[in-house]
């Protein structure tokens, strides 16, 4: 019990002293997960919408694959990305292993199916005739898709929250492809794992609290936007 109390006290000391290392790790975590979420939003929404609005053989299989992808184990993604960007791997020439770029790629791969699955479901949940109604009003196909996406903005914000939540908290892929290099690719989750391994529970708890606060603040912001839209 004493260990926990000491840890929490130390954590708040670290937080309130604005420790430069902790701030750096926090900022890097935000940059990497934010960029990955943004990338996943682009691919997830466009592919999810395309799958929802088109009919093709094997559509159910594709939807099942997307839904399965929503629960992709980060370590498997980490392993896959590592192999791809390994020096002798197919993308080895990029030389991005153990860099923040590799972490962004891995996190984007984790978040994309989450965003895709929620986008697909939200577009499919719109009234079936809405699409025809928009076309009947004279919209082009692109205009129709844009209106449908805008109409699904509430669930899409939920997709952003789920995607960001999924990647800011993952550790397996980040540690595998980022390497947890101090001042370069160390993020909140990888640092927490490392400090826990070293027995520095106070620092680990501090990092854990920051991670929770960060996730909470981002989701608070998105929830605020979402609920404002809902009430409008």
């Amino acid at each position, binding site marked *: 019990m004493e260990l926990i109390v000491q840890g929490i006290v130390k954590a708040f000391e670290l937080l309130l002293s604005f420790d430069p290392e902790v701030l750096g790790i926090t900022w890097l975590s935000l940059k990497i997960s934010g960029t990955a979420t943004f990338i996943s939003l682009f691919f997830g929404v466009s592919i999810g919408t395309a799958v929802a609005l088109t009919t093709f053989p094997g559509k159910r299989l594709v939807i099942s694959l997307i839904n399965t992808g929503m629960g992709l184990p980060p370590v498997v993604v980490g392993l896959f990305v590592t192999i791809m960007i390994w020096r002798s791997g197919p993308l080895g020439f990029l030389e991005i292993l153990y860099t923040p770029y590799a972490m962004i790629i891995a996190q984007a791969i984790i978040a994309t199916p989450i965003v895709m699955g929620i986008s697909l479901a939200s577009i499919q949940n719109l*009234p079936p*005739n*809405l699409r*025809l*109604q*928009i*076309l*009947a*009003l*004279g*919209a*082009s196909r692109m*205009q129709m898709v844009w*209106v449908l996406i*805008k*109409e699904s903005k509430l669930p899409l914000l939920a997709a952003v929250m789920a995607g960001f939540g999924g990647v800011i908290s993952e550790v397996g892929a980040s540690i595998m492809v980022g390497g947890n290099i101090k001042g370069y690719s160390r993020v909140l989750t990888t640092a927490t794992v490392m400090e826990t391994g070293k027995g520095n529970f106070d620092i680990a708890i501090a990092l854990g609290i920051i991670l929770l606060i960060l996730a909470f603040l981002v989701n608070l912001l998105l929830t605020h936007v979402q609920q404002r*839209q809902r009430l*409008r």
Partner: protein
Amino acid sequence: MNSIMTVQNLLVRRGGVTVLDIEEMSVEAGRVLALIGPNGAGKSTLLLTMAGLLKPDRGRIFYRGVPVDTGARRSEMRKSVSVVFQESLLLNTSVYKNVALGLMFRRLTTGDIRKNVENALAYFGISALAGRSAKTLSGGEAKRVSLARAFALKPELILLDEAFNSLDPPTRETLIDDLRHILEETKITAVLALHDREETLRMAQDVVVLADGGILQSGTTAQIFNQPASEFVAGFVGTETILEGTVRNNRNGLLEIAVADKMIEAVGDFLPGKAVFCCIRPENITVSDAPQDKSSARNVFEAKIQKIVRQAFFYKMILDCGFVVVAYITVSSCEDLRLCEGSSVAVSFKATAVHVMPRER
């Protein structure tokens, strides 16, 4: 007549099943056409195809004489055609933005958009709702907004798919009256998918009866309701008395038709011996406590009331006069005459009230 739209040899199949098979149908400019028929008759499919939103497996659609056979022509036609679906299908934004949506797609100036939206909202009496969120509207208000959105585009042709469904009766009544008034005033051609006889009578000048994807009969509303071409159409348009008979005599177009052991006089052109149906609309049958001396009706029969069924504003009577007929009587008349089941009454109807059609053997 001036056709605004014609469909020819239209075939639509879904999942290997034919849902629409129409040889030819025309929509006359400036008139209101009702597509009526039971559920699954193909009314909505036909409307979607006419709107260019559903590609037929075969056949052609002509809009103002020009075949609508390419994507570009379909898009061009859609600029002149508005569609209102059964659901209001409003976007999660203000009423104003919903009504402006189609105008924005047409890239009108902000000033023109405002003018058109304000006019359309005023037409449907919903100007006060402009700033409201579409989500907060009642069913009737939402329907008015969806109609205003369609009319704001100033279409030449408007297609309405069972637009009055799911509205409570008072709201529906008011909306039907308003829409009829607006259509009369604007002279916009309209095609309405309906399954309510009363709505059809109130709204439409022309009627197409559909069943199983095909056209059973088309014509003016009076023709369809008074001269149904088949037993099915007669039943569907509310001809409640359909009697099987055989023509016994034809005296210059005045037929004597044997029905059960009675003789009915009707107007028609059938040879003696012809098996026919005699169709009589309930509103054309008069019920009285005794035969009326001054009545000009050629058909007068004594009858017994088999059953009295209370409807919304009248009684429906099933009467046995050797054959069974159905008549409507007002509540006050029924009470004045002290009619009850088993009462003896006189039933009369004119020869011209009997629509005779051949019975296929």
